[in-house]
């Protein structure tokens, strides 16, 4: 009759004295959880037969369970220790008998009594080792109360002794068992390792090939099959060099040998060839071993590196591309890692700095290549960028190898480094030496264009000045006659010549302005009395603008002082804007030139792209038709023109813009259709400046 005891609940049990030694002894026997053995089965069978009970067990009491080495009448192999009758048996000496568990207060509420299998009778003899530890019991159990007589006690004692003897015999054979076990386990481990390897070989994307000492293929995984296209049976026994491309086989076959592997174990790049003839780049990792019993002599792991090669190719191509583009554009780039102070230079950047062989320099080395007058400014730019400010473009000079200065324009910005910290500055610099030269030519040309536009006005003005000169001198000639001139004649001649003198001087002033305008000179900035220069230009404009255009000057009385500009360029700009306005107004209207001073706030100056400070604000407003946003937003672009083809160069306003910027000023335009246009120049005023003349 089999009964299920496995449903018993967990419960605590108080271990007996010397429990640790007892458990250690039990474990020395290495009996727990071993297979059933006939010697023990036979003992429980005998116990049950001889005592006429349905259940007999050899129970071994472990830390928190009892485990049955042999069990008759129960189908479980263990129960929790806390409900084990045997736990009581091993605490005493000799046989432990419970005639009626239900009547015994120690067991009346035991779940084995109150529930399945409803035990009533228990008799157990401890299995005691030679050193005195009770490992467990041989016990007999019944579902009916019983009295155990002397015969029964003897039977149980004898059988318990037999069981202990079997345990001792078994332990004595332990070493032997151990050896057998070890052999068993190592064989299993080996088999398991082999299985794992096989599974890995199956899933890896790398081809794995093993060859014998004659370099004939003897192992071939699935990836190899996919990579090369050969079934295992197709390559088995083939020389491993059949995996190499036809073109390179002779040269590379030596690399796929055991000797080569022993010489050098590093991966090698070889030319593979698939079954369909396609060649591909492969990377081979070789391993060899010395095992007289193994057929394989060395192995190769092969990786298809087609993609990697393509990427490397792409990278190297884009590198060449970038270098070439930089060379053509005359544009270099640099990358400064702030913490370790290394500035990596692009090839072109190194060349621009005159350090063609350097690729990495320190900040100080970089600065030392700049013209000494530009170093402080450059240092300032970099410091500004480091605080997170955007850097506008700045210009610096690098002394050339042979002659002259190379002019570079650059900008830089702060970026996040690889580690996510903002500690890198990336910059570019472009060689604008030629551009600056061209710009100078362009500006000169623009001046002449503006002058051309004014030619009519200039001629008109000069003709008007010549008229009184011609008429009055002619008239006066009539007064030259024999005899002294009359009082009246003298008086008249005085008035005439006063006028002639005045007009001749006016003519001289116009010619001066024109010459100054057309003079080819570098845009050297000097400190000028801004209001005086502006008024001189106004006088010129007053004479040469068409009379249909009324020129109104509104100069705030408080506006006075100096600015660092180029006076000729100021005339040019004002004339340029005036001529544009006259054109826009169709020769009829009012042109208002106003001058004031203003302190630009940080916001305003930022929007204009200038440093905050005090500015002369020079506005030139016309009463023309104005312009829509689409035109307004583009007028400072070079070559943008609204004039018919052939009438304008489209450079006028871009030149104005460039000039004003070179004065650290700004120009903006406000306009709307039907409301005229106003060009406003912001020119930094020098404060506390005493002119040269006053020193």
């Amino acid at each position, binding site marked *: 009759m089999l009964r299920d005891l496995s449903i018993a609940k967990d419960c605590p049990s108080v271990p007996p004295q010397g429990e640790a030694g007892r458990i250690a002894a039990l474990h020395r026997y290495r009996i727990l959880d071993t297979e059933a053995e006939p010697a023990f089965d036979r003992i429980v069978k005998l116990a049950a037969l001889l005592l006429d009970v349905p259940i007999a067990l050899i129970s071994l009491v472990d830390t928190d369970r009892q485990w049955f080495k042999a069990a008759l009448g129960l189908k479980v192999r263990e129960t929790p220790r806390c409900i084990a009758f045997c736990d009581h048996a091993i605490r005493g000496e000799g046989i432990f008998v419970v005639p009626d568990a239900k009547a015994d207060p120690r067991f009346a509420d035991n779940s084995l009594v109150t529930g399945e299998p409803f035990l009533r009778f228990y008799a157990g003899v401890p299995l005691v080792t030679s050193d005195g530890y009770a490992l467990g019991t041989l016990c007999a159990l019944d579902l009916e109360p019983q009295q155990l007589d002397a015969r029964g006690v003897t039977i149980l004692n004898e059988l318990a002794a037999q069981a202990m003897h079997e345990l001792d015999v078994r332990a004595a054979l332990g070493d032997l068992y151990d050896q057998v076990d070890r052999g068993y386990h190592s064989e299993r481990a080996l088999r398991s390792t082999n299985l794992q390897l096989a599974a890995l070989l199956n899933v890896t994307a790398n081809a794995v090939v093993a060859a014998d000492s004659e370099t004939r293929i003897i192992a071939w995984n699935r990836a190899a099959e996919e990579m090369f296209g050969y079934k295992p049976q197709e390559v088995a026994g083939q020389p491993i060099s059949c995996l190499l491309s036809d073109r390179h086989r002779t040269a590379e076959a030596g690399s796929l040998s055991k000797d080569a592997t022993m010489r050098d174990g590093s991966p090698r790049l070889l030319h593979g060839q698939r079954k369909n003839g396609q060649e591909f780049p492969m990377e081979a990792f070789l391993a060899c071993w010395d095992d007289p019993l193994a057929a394989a002599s060395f192995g190769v792991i092969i990786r298809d590196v087609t993609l990697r090669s393509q990427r490397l190719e792409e990278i190297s191509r884009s590198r060449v591309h970038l270098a070439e583009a930089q060379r053509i554009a005359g544009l270099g780039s640099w990358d400064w890692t702030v913490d370790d102070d290394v500035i990596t230079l692009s090839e072109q950047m190194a060349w621009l700095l005159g350090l063609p062989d350097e690729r990495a320099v320190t900040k100080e080395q970089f600065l030392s290549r700049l013209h000494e007058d530009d170093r402080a400014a450059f240092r300032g730019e970099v410091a500004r960028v480091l605080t997170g400010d955007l850097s506008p473009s700045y210009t610096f000079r690098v002394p050339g190898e042979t002659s002259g200065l190379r002019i570079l324009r650059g900008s830089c910005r702060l970026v996040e480094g690889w580690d996510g910290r903002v500690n890198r500055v990336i910059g570019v610099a472009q060689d604008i030496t030629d551009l600056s030269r061209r710009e100078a030519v362009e500006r000169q040309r623009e001046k002449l264009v503006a002058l051309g536009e004014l030619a009519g006005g200039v001629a*008109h003005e000069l003709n008007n000045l010549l008229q009184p000169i011609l008429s009055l001198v002619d008239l006066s000639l009539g007064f030259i006659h024999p005899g002294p001139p009359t009082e009246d004649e003298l008086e008249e001649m005085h008035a*005439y010549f006063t006028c002639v003198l005045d007009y001749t001087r006016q003519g001289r002033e116009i010619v001066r302005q024109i010459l100054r305008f057309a003079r080819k000179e570098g845009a050297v900035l000097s400190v000028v009395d801004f209001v005086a220069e502006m008024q001189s230009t106004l006088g010129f404009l007053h004479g040469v603008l068409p009379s*249909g255009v009324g020129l109104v000057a509104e100069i705030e009385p408080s506006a006075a002082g100096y600015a660092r500009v180029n006076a000729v360029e100021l005339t040019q700009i004002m004339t340029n804007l005036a001529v544009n306005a006259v054109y826009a107004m169709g020769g009829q209207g009012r042109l208002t030139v106003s001058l004031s001073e203003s302190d630009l706030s940080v916001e305003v100056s930022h929007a204009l792209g200038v440093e905050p400070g005090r500015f002369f604000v020079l506005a030139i407003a016309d009463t023309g038709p104005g312009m829509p946003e689409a035109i307004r937003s583009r007028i400072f672009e070079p070559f943008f023109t609204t004039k018919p083809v052939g009438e304008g160069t489209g450079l006028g306003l871009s030149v104005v813009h460039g000039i004003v910027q070179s004065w650290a000023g700004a120009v903006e335009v406000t306009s709307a259709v039907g409301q005229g246009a106003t060009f406003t120049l912001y020119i930094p005023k020098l404060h506390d400046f005493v002119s040269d003349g006053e020193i």
Partner: protein
Amino acid sequence: MANILLIEDMKGVRLALTAVLKHGGHTVTEADDGSTGLEILRSGRRFDLVITDILMPTIDGIEVIMFLEAQANRPPIVAISGGGSQMPSDKALMLAKTKADAVLSKPFDNADLLATIERLVHKSGTKKG
């Protein structure tokens, strides 16, 4: 000798031409711009000849010429111009020149001015007669 209206905004030119005309025996009334000139003409004063500059601020010589054109029996007109391309108003200028009886480009000789006046006043006087 003719009674002449001279409209010219440039002081020096006005001074010079007035002197030349007076020495030539003419009577001169000066107007220092187009609007003053028109005012004088509108007042009904009669002149034997009108000399007007063409390019002047506000009301220019073209308007003066157009006003005279509209008059019956108008006096001869001499337009004087500084010459040179005058940008967009070129067409109006051309028109004015065709309406004027004579055009003199500055700087012109005194003799040319006097001869032109002589010719026009004489022609006009002949017509009248």
